[in-house]
């Protein structure tokens, strides 16, 4: 099994396309759409939550307005801020955009998706997290250090679970390349595959933890002593804060798109024709709307976990992903 993982080169899906200028242009446009849609998706989740909690929702464009306000503001830096503190927002935002670029969003026929795989994607997120944690510690406030330490503790548990879930789908598809995985899952009989159900459950739990949503972290508040992500970026302001918030929203969207495209890829475009892409946009928008509602409902129904319960939550995710891999080996590989 390991041999088949290694043998499947990530370049097999769209190698001839890599030279194609139109393909790169399309990948660029898709990434731009990806980045631009991120505040909208976060706004949609917030809106559904407001509806469920009988509150007046902010307009859907509020996310963009907030970003514009933040980008217009002057940056104030602490006296002790080193260069790490200043470059961290750019690195985090850049790495997250790269992660978005290599994720098949509307089409699997991407040169950017052909040159990377799921492990590289996890690497981009790990890179962003590393610099975010460094920036949290850089100023030397208690909150920043606490947030960084929590983030690294949780990520040490979340990353293996995430990789295990990705390995499970990679084993089903005999490739770690996301485009190949998606194509193979789309063409195979997958609704009854227990390994994919396990992996999907595990992946969703990890995604909730990695994107800092309830029940692991609360994205809506600065005032909780249990916060994780907000504690690290507490000292930021102006465009730096704007970039970090945008990166967080983009990360949420990347995970949502990954969950949709890996476990429910029907409708994704396989060619660059306008009709296929139009269909893919419609399918993706519909699925994101549904996923947003599901997320909002689960967040409304659940309370935030105690921080010391979170490792159990992540261990459950890891066990589920491990169960996915085991049930593939036991039940499906023959």
């Amino acid at each position, binding site marked *: 099994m390991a041999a088949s993982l290694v043998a499947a080169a990530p370049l097999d899906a769209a190698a001839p396309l890599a030279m194609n200028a139109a393909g790169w242009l399309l990948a660029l446009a898709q990434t731009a759409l990806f980045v631009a849609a991120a505040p909208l998706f976060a706004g949609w989740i917030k809106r559904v939550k407001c509806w469920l909690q009988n509150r007046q929702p902010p307009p859907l464009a509020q996310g963009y307005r907030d970003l514009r306000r933040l980008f217009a503001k002057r940056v104030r830096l602490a006296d002790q801020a080193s260069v790490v503190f200043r470059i961290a927002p750019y690195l985090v935002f850049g790495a997250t955009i790269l992660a978005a670029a290599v994720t098949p969003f509307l089409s699997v026929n991407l040169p950017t998706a052909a040159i990377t795989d799921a492990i590289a994607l996890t690497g981009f997120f790990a890179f962003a997290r590393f610099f975010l944690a460094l920036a949290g510690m850089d100023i030397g406030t208690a909150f920043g250090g606490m947030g960084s330490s929590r983030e690294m503790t949780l990520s040490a548990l979340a990353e293996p679970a995430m990789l295990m879930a990705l390995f499970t789908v990679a084993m089903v598809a005999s490739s770690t390349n996301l485009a190949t995985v998606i194509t193979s899952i789309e063409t*195979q*009989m997958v609704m*009854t*595959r*227990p*390994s994919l*159900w*396990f992996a999907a*459950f595990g992946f969703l739990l990890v995604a909730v933890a990695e994107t800092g949503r309830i029940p692991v972290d609360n994205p809506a508040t600065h005032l909780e002593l249990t916060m994780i992500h907000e504690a690290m970026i507490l000292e930021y302001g102006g465009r730096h804060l704007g970039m970090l918030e945008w990166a967080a929203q983009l990360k949420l969207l990347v995970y949502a798109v990954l969950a949709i495209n890996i476990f429910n890829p029907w409708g994704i475009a396989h060619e660059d024709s306008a009709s296929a892409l139009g269909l893919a946009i419609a399918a993706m928008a519909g699925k994101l709307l549904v996923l947003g509602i599901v997320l909002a409902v689960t967040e409304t129904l659940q309370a935030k976990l105690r921080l010391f319960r979170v*490792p*159990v939550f992540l*261990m*459950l995710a*890891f*066990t*589920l992903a*491990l*169960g996915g891999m*085991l*049930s593939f*080996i*036991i*039940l*499906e*590989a*023959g």
Partner: protein
Amino acid sequence: MFFAQLPIYEQAILALAAGVLLLSFFMLAHPRIYSVIKLFAWQGLVLAATTALVAFDSQTPHLYISAVLTLGLKAVFIPWLLLRMVDKFEMHHELDEIRRPGLTLLTAGALVVFCYHTTLPIAELLLAITRNVIAICMSVVLLGMLMLVSRNKALTQVVGFMTLENGLFFAAVAVTKGMPMVVELGIAFDVLIAAVIFGVFFLHIRQSIDSLDISRLSRLSEAERE
């Protein structure tokens, strides 16, 4: 691809088998007694559905009777009995904290690997499509044992014991197309009686130590209780 070539109901058997294992994992990790019993009921339901599918797949009509028995006993009657117990003792919100949940779950994962490894030679001797399921059955048995040792409250321990029985029954269905009807009826009756006797035990434990926390029974005198 091996899996994709199977008929749809055989795929469903394998998927439901994985579901049984998944529910075992959830039962192991869930701290709330009420939810653990509900999960147990779900496992009984999935087990009954799997048994009915195996009956259909292997053309053995007497397995339908087993399926109905499983449905009636493990998905309805025993959970109902246990839930009534919870009602009576007013334990709706009571938790049965697992001391080291992370370690327990990791152990559970390791147990599944161990079961797969040990049942591999047995599985090679069998021809039925359900031969791969035997590792799952073994795992459910061992996870039930793990639940027995990792829990403190009597109710959840009984659920662990019943899960263990689920695993044994599943193994019988999957490997030998069910035991003879007499044996199966006898076991069903035993389980039924066990559930009733456990109920009486709960009452006695409750009366003597004012709780269902078994760990208190390991201390010798009242004075040590804080």
